[in-house]
């Protein structure tokens, strides 16, 4: 089968995990994610500016944000909030459109805020379509199918 070598890369690339400690209390760090006037001050690499956006911070609410890159291109990012547990956890889908407006892959971002007193440990997980599907499968009841798919891909990587 064609799967042999590709599946290893698939499992390796499946999820992005970034951990950072911020020198600020948990509730303040959480607020940076949920209040637009704070979010625009740090969201995106330097040189990028937010030109428009909306965020409806509740489960099922939509967020979108258009940013201008240093080279003038406008990039739109958008998604749906899946879970909001203040000030501990924030889960949302995240899609980046290409410059002509075609949506890129849907990803799932889970941000966890751990209270360390005056500091906060932030852990960001971002998964590809498999994590989006896993959340969906949870409701639709086809988790076992999906697990079989994952098992199959990793078995073929060996």
């Amino acid at each position: 089968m064609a799967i042999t070598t590709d599946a290893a890369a698939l499992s390796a690339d499946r999820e992005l995990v970034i951990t950072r400690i911020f020198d600020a209390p948990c509730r303040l760090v959480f607020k940076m994610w949920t209040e637009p006037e704070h979010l625009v001050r740090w969201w995106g690499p330097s040189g990028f500016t937010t030109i428009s956006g909306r965020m409806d911070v509740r489960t099922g609410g939509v967020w979108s944000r258009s940013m201008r890159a240093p080279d003038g291109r406008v990039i739109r990012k958008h998604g749906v909030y899946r879970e909001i547990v203040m000030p501990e956890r924030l889960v949302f889908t995240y899609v980046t459109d290409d410059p002509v407006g075609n949506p890129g892959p849907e990803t799932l971002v889970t941000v966890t805020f751990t209270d360390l007193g005056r500091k906060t440990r932030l852990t960001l997980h971002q998964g590809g379509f498999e994590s989006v599907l896993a959340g969906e499968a949870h409701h639709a009841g086809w988790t076992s199918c999906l697990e079989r798919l994952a098992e199959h891909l990793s078995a073929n990587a060996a």
Partner: protein
Amino acid sequence: MLPDHLSTTYAALADPTRRAILARLAAGEATVSELAEPFAMSLPAVSKHLKVLERAGLIARRRKAQWRPCRIEARPLKDATQWLEHYRRFWDDSFDRLDGYLAELQSGEQKDGDNN
């Protein structure tokens, strides 16, 4: 930026029936009628889904066999995960800025009192 074929992959994956078909094929090759069975769907309806999956390169069908069994292809799934690396840079840069912004905010708070 994302190559065009990724849009095709994601459009193909956007449908729950097609994802279930893919999950079924992970267990092994299957014919159109075997795939139709759990969905209470007509064969033409299933064939339509299979065409979308095939165009996206997510499945392949044996050309010569009479029943043309389908099998899963992993490459497009792998390509669909590589963009994650682009996001790593995005977050690292953003978090550097967040770090600076938080420092700025808190030094302001000390002067003005805590309004949060």
